[in-house]
């Protein structure tokens, strides 16, 4: 089974600074999707960014970007110009693109991000 590892249980960043959250995964598949979700105290899981494994270009969404290293099976999230509203738990997730095995999303254990004013 695929596994997703987030080795940083907690991170903090000064407001307006940049922070990088780490994620590694283990898979034997060549085609898959990777996601970063944000979960603020309200519990609502919100999609931050998505990356298709077949795309070499790193995904970017405004202040959020990823560093996708397929060979290293690494998928880090960079948050630029951090804002107080970025404070949340961040989850990295993996999903296969294959038929039957694509039912499940595999989530890491999360990284709690604190933004310091």
């Amino acid at each position: 089974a695929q596994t997703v590892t987030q080795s940083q249980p907690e991170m903090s960043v000064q407001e307006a600074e940049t922070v990088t959250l780490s994620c590694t995964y283990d898979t034997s598949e060549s085609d898959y999707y990777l996601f970063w979700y944000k979960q603020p105290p309200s519990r609502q899981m919100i999609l931050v960014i998505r990356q298709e494994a077949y795309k070499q270009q790193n995904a970017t969404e405004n202040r959020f970007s990823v560093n996708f290293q397929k060979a290293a099976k690494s998928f880090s999230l960079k948050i630029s110009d951090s804002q107080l509203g970025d404070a949340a738990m961040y989850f990295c997730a993996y999903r296969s693109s294959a038929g039957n095995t694509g039912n499940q999303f595999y989530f890491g254990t999360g990284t709690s991000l604190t933004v310091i004013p």
Partner: protein
Amino acid sequence: GAGVSQSPSNKVTEKGKDVELRCDPISGHTALYWYRQSLGQGLEFLIYFQGNSAPDKSGLPSDRFSAERTGGSVSTLTIQRTQQEDSAVYLCASSLGGKRRKTQYFGPGTRLLVL
């Protein structure tokens, strides 16, 4: 449009009682997922529905857990004879079906506390 909704938001029950948790997916989404999130933990997959296909129940932790999806839309997760270790946030998510089911959209969750 409306997102995924779940009810109730919070549920407190006594050990041994049965509970039902409800999920209304986004209209048009044929795939529906249930997850459990224990305190300080990641998401644990429970069950997956896709259209009229047989559900993938591989994540259900015991036979006390069951789920159904009526008419391909609303889903109910039932926990029988609740135990204290069932206390968690139960999240529902939906997505488009087939090869387009790239992204899941989550509801706000139901926080279950078993006393």
